[in-house]
């Protein structure tokens, strides 16, 4: 397929001179450590609930970017996996009394399962058709959530108990929850990093760059696409399920198509096909949403403007630009 991440929109092309990949790996390790350190000090300066929200959305964007940036597939329906997982986790915790970790696992599984079904359908078409199909399927999921009794319709599932992690640690304390969310976030980020750098990730990049060639080398491209779709949907589910615990609720917002648009925006702003770009994108977008809240409809307008500006001028995103500048992949 004509992929979005290579060609003229390629992530910063970094000429590698001997040992560059080892350099980059060291840099990435440093960034991971820096990020962890930042997460330790951040709650002293910023509101922890806000930080947790940023982490949930960053995780969502990272999951989405795994599909777009490394699989070359633009899904316009990722809200479905995020939102359905959020409902599943919230319901399991509230009604069945699942502990947080089990509820989140269930949410992740639901996201992945839905991804398997939708993905299997969507990868039958390519390019813009793929995007339109994912959008249409997600809209179907939205109507399902709207009508199904267990989601509480427009009221949503409210008052989800944060519960005790492993039955031991009480998460109702914001600080405990913060630590838990930070660990989930860093863990998932590390997993995505590992996926990208696994043999699977290599093959994926090859398929993204040149699908016919990868096929001619014996790769069954559609299997890889489906696999990355499911992975991405599962991780989106992880993000959604975690969010259900942070806010103690699951609502229709999370399955609505505008949420799918938001995650595209986050990735675009941060830099698609970069590992750390979605984090920056999520931070920018969530901050914008929170602090422009008093401006009413201007939030949508500003989001639209950011979309247009990014597409026209900043296709590499913030982190993509930095990567180009320091000539190392980020």
């Amino acid at each position, binding site marked *: 397929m004509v992929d979005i*991440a*290579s060609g003229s929109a*390629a*992530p910063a*092309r*970094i*000429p*590698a*001179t*001997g*040992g*560059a*990949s080892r350099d980059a790996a060291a840099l990435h390790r440093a960034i991971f450590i820096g990020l962890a350190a930042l997460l330790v000090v951040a709650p002293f300066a910023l509101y922890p609930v806000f930080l947790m929200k940023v982490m949930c959305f960053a995780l969502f964007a990272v999951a989405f970017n795994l599909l777009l940036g490394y699989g070359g597939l633009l899904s316009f329906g990722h809200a479905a996996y995020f939102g359905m997982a959020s409902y599943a986790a919230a319901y399991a915790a509230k009604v069945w009394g699942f502990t947080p970790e089990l509820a989140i696992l269930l949410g992740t599984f639901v996201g992945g399962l839905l991804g398997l079904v939708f993905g299997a359908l969507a990868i039958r078409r390519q390019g813009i058709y793929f995007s339109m199909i994912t959008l249409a399927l997600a809209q179907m999921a939205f109507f399902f959530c709207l009508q199904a009794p267990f989601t509480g319709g427009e009221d949503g599932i409210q008052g989800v108990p944060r519960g005790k992690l492993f039955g031991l640690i009480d998460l109702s304390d914001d600080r405990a929850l913060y630590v838990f969310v930070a660990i989930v976030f860093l863990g998932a980020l590390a997993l995505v990093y*590992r*996926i990208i*750098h*696994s*043999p*699977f*990730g*290599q*093959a994926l*990049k*090859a398929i*993204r*760059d*040149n699908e*016919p*060639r*990868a*096929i*001619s*080398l*014996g*790769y*069954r*491209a559609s*299997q*890889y696409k489906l*696999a990355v779709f499911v*992975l991405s949907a599962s991780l989106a589910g992880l993000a959604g399920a975690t969010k259900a615990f942070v806010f103690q609720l699951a609502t229709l917002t999370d399955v609505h198509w505008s949420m799918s648009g938001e995650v595209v925006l986050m990735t675009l702003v941060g830099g698609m096909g970069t590992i750390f770009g979605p984090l920056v994108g999520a931070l920018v977008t969530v901050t914008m949403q929170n602090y422009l809240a008093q401006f009413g409809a201007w939030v949508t307008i500003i989001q639209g403007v950011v979309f247009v500006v990014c597409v026209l001028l900043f296709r590499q995103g913030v982190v993509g630009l930095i990567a180009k500048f320091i000539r190392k992949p980020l």
Partner: protein
Amino acid sequence: MPEIRPTDDATGSAGGEIVLQAEGLSKNFAGFSAVSGVDLAVRRGTIHALIGPNGAGKTTCFNLLTKFLTPTGGVIRYMGRDITRMKPADVARLGLVRSFQISAVFPNLTVKENVRIALQRRIRGSSLDFWRSESVLHALDQDALALVEDVGLSAYAEHLAVELSYGRKRALEIATTLALKPDMLLLDEPMAGMGHEDIDRTAALIKRVSRNRTILMVEHNLSVVASLSDRITVLARGQVLSEGDYATVSTNPRVIEAYIGAGHA
């Protein structure tokens, strides 16, 4: 000059049993018949060239053989096995590997990684194992670098493929193809767009890799064809015009006519 029929086994110049065989291969596009009733038999250990003037249906034929197009009619057999309805990736797994007319590399991977992608399937039947570390791939680095060296790209091993010159991309593509240790190679215009030096180097490379392998190539450059091929099939207007060794086809008046036109004087 006796006309040589494509299926005339007695005149087969070289090679063992038939590896790749097409019978009555046809392809129609929206009422236009690009390839009609082509018979082709490629024998083990030969370099077989598919030539013909522009629009003769060479590339269509080639895409049919590699399954990137589905034939409208006819049968394709590889090692006696019917592959007419098989998927391209599965054909590749049988050891029948193609190259592409325009350079087919993975632009955002390094040269080494390009080759390693082809080697990668060796370490596990399926590389859907996303949880494994990149380090398992380092085991393949040595083999990859050896192949890179074979095509003279050692100095560029850590460069992204996108930065290579056109000729070097073609060389990289061949290295990647060879990494699969294919039994049979299908080369689509391996010399297209190359300068003299590149052509000579690539021709030598093809000659070298043809040992113990079967090669079918589409090529325009007749001098390359002449020096490399054991057997040539000439296509014109979607049909086989002639088949035989270079001496045979190059003196066939119908071939000459197809190429340079009949005199009107």
